[in-house]
């Protein structure tokens, strides 16, 4: 089978953050030190080599970048300072843009401006729509109930609409990921029962990120902070997403007056703690750049991600306080501001880093399936080899 080479691939990846791939001289230090690299999935050196050779197709169909959690040990050790860790990160960015069928992700990664225009455009549209809706139907000075500026059933419906749009894009992208890696990337047919056998890895990796935890070997302290904080941020985000999509109406006073549904609120507070700790931690580390090598380089899309999330969390907290204090008009204003940030955030997700919420656990799952297949394949080829001999 002919292999197509893209000699400009390595230059192309510059935009995604991998700048020093050409320096690599293939010593394999990175693969040797990596806690996740093993017999079946050997990286990052192999990816570096493929990049140098311009084997775009090979990289497109591999799961290896998703198996790396960027602990930074490889970059730390690299004798050529070729930064394999950052290369894997860039490959993940590139893969996100590759899985995305719309081409929007690619545009975001290639041009800062386009992303900012996209975000601001959606934000303005959202703001206009909400103010128009609020002023035409409700009372600017009322927060709860039927007369409200933004009644919760409307917000619920609005959220579900935006959410389903997001899921639509994500689902297609995830399907493409499966197609690339499992159909184009594997030479033999994969039996369906393997998919069933490994199904449990999907929720397991989604909720524990156990693989990230095993990166901690590099760190001298017992707890690997990036993992814990990352997990907290992710869980907080997921809880919040579930609350917003399913229980938004429980956050507001009932028609009878100020009765607070604590069962929902407690989750909301937990999620807020997780989110805010995570954001503060990541911003500080990215500004400080000293403690963890993985925070040394920050792509522009990462900053959009963090800042947008920070604004969402801050406005969410402020709006909640104002609402509880009964300053309804300001609560309404901040609510609109909050939604102005939330909608572009949700509509940006399938095309940005946050998509790894889906891709990561999916990759773990598919990798588990692939592993079984590859082990079998190897055993097969070995027996063939011996018989030929």
């Amino acid at each position, binding site marked *: 089978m002919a292999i197509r080479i893209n000699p400009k691939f390595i230059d192309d990846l510059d935009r995604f953050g991998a700048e020093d791939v050409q320096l690599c001289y293939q010593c*394999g230090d990175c693969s040797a030190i990596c806690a996740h690299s093993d017999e079946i999935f050997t990286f990052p050196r192999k990816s570096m080599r493929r990049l140098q050779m311009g084997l775009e197709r090979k990289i497109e169909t591999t799961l290896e970048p998703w198996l790396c959690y960027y602990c930074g040990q490889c970059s730390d050790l690299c004798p050529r300072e070729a930064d394999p860790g950052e290369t894997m990160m860039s490959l993940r960015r590139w893969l996100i843009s590759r899985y995305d069928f719309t081409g929007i992700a690619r545009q975001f990664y290639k041009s800062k401006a386009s992303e900012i225009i996209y975000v601001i455009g959606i934000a303005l549209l959202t703001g206009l729509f909400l103010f128009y809706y609020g002023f035409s139907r409700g009372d600017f000075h009322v927060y709860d109930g039927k007369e409200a500026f933004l009644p919760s059933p409307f917000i619920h419906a609005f959220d579900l609409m935006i959410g389903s749009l997001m899921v639509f894009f994500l689902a297609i992208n995830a399907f493409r990921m499966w197609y690339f890696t499992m159909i184009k990337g594997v030479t033999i047919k994969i039996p369906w029962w393997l998919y069933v056998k490994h199904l449990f890895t999907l929720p397991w990796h989604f909720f524990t990120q156990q693989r990230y935890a095993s990166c901690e070997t590099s760190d001298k302290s017992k707890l690997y902070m990036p993992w814990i904080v990352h997990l907290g941020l992710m869980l907080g985000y997921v809880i919040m997403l579930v609350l917003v999509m399913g229980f938004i109406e429980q956050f507001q006073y009932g028609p009878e007056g100020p009765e607070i549904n604590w069962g929902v609120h407690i989750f909301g507070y937990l999620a807020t703690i997780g989110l805010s700790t995570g954001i503060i931690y990541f911003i500080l580390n990215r500004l400080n750049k000293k403690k963890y090598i993985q925070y040394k380089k920050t792509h522009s899309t990462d900053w959009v991600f963090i800042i947008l999330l920070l604004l969402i969390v801050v406005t969410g907290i402020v709006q909640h306080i104002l609402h509880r204090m009964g300053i309804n008009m300001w609560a309404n204003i901040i609510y609109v501001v909050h939604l102005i940030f939330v909608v572009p955030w949700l509509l940006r997700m399938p095309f940005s880093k946050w998509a790894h919420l889906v891709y990561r656990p999916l990759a773990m799952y598919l990798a588990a399936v692939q592993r079984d297949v590859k082990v079998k394949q190897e055993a097969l080829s070995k027996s063939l080899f011996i018989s030929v001999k």
Partner: protein
Amino acid sequence: MRTGIFFCQVEEGLHLNIDAIAKYSANLPGVETVQILGLKTRQDAKVLSEIIQANSLERIVIAGDMPGYYKPVFTKAMALAGLNTDEIRLASFQEHGARGDVAMDRAKATVACANMAVPFSLVAIPSKNPVNHATLIIGGGIAGIQASLEIANAGKLVYLVEQTGTIGGHMAMFDKTFPTLDCAACILTPKMVSIGQHDMINLLTNSRITEVSGKPGAYRVKIHQRARRVDVDACVACNICTDVCPVKVESEFDSKISLRKAIYIPFPQAVPNAYLVDGENCSYILSEGKKCGVCVKKCPKECINLNESDRDIDIEVGNIIIATGYELLDVGKIEQYGYGKIPNVLTSLEFERLTNASGSTGGRIVTKTKSINKKTGKEEWALTPDGLPPRNVAIIHCVGSRNKKYNAYCSRVCCMYSLKFAHLIKEKIPNANVYEFYIDMRAFGKGYEEFAERIRHEGTFVVRGHSTKVEMKGEQIVVRGEDILNDKIVEFKVDMVILAVGLIPAPGTEDITRILGITRDSDGWFSELDYNGNPTDTERGGIYVAGMCQGPKDIPDTVAQASAVAAGVLGSITSGKGIGHLSSVSLSEIEARAKTVHIL
């Protein structure tokens, strides 16, 4: 002859003023016209020929940094004017060293010579510079030894300064040399003995240079010689003093894998073959004569004088050769290899001493054995002759070499000696498994590739891929690496790990740089004048480099360079002038001399 001088130079350097040179050239005999053309890349031959005809010129001088570039167009112009095209003379500023403080004078001189059609090099001969026939050689390794013998055999006096108690250097520590697997001592020790016995060699051990003054051909050097405290001529190396000495110190010669006494001989074949006292550890000297002193009482030849003091020696030499060699990078700072924490991780020099038949285990390759220190209660690991031989050995190449964090350069010898180690292990422990982790196999010399091939065929597992993880799993050392050619992550359980550690300039290199006023490159090695043309000269006349101190090289290259240095030194002595320096010749001298030279 009617001459026209054309300046084809626009870039005026810091010291170069074209107008002033033009003014000077206008006054030279026979000059009709001086034109400043600037650095225009395309000159019109027609315009030039008109100028030539207008001034009815007979000779053209093109002056500038690259006059040769314009020669074709002037040839054309001369031909158009119907003149002899042989009468085009070039005055190249760059070629004749018109830079720095001498730039103006040198540029004028080149123009003057070209004007008279006299080759500059025939005229500009540095004045004679009487050369002292003695030579100082710093460092008594194989490079210093070879250079000393070459020069001394030519009948010239040599001062060989060595900072340890014996000559021999690193080569004396080696067991075998690659790729021939010759015994290193068999090559080296005869040379060492001839150094010791040579009439023309003045061997100064335990010494270092402290001050150098003077100029090429006549250097005055101050040497500080630490007290040996044993009379070299009287000592018969009977070993009684060592037997009675109570102080034990790690042996430098044995790469610190064994112990020596405070009065010792580095190794049995040392030259001078006499004992010496380690002033930093001897309890008699440390207590200022209050304790011990037992060796003095026991010495049958009464040749030990513990109260001897250091002395300073002043010598005068004509040439100085630096042959200070190298040392190993401190591998303890590269943490992932576990050196210093895992007992059976050895550096290459440690293994070299372990496998050497004159080493502490008598050449048996063993793993370290554990013992409990009775005084401190701590675990101690030592290489003893009754240790267990290793069954699996990993050898890791490029430790600290080709690494931007430590040494960016290749240390050049590691690949080959690592292969040699594999062979020695296989030879002494035939059923042992040897794993070589390499990045690129640099078998660059004569017979080296064949040697590498031979080692592969001997059953050594040569793994393309650099291991970077050496760790203890229980009692077992595990080496993890990527086998790139087989696309596998491999983990080998081994009993011993040998690190092919990168090389850095010897300690004290910095002092020598300062004392001699020469330069070093960014990696710390001494800079040679020109890597291709003058690999043994330094920027300062009469000072040469040989061996590792100029950059990593193997024994054959070191010996070759040492011999080459000797040729340079002997040449400067027999010609009666040092590396002559043109700066000593003035412009008026060149002008005057140019008139006396006649070219037919």
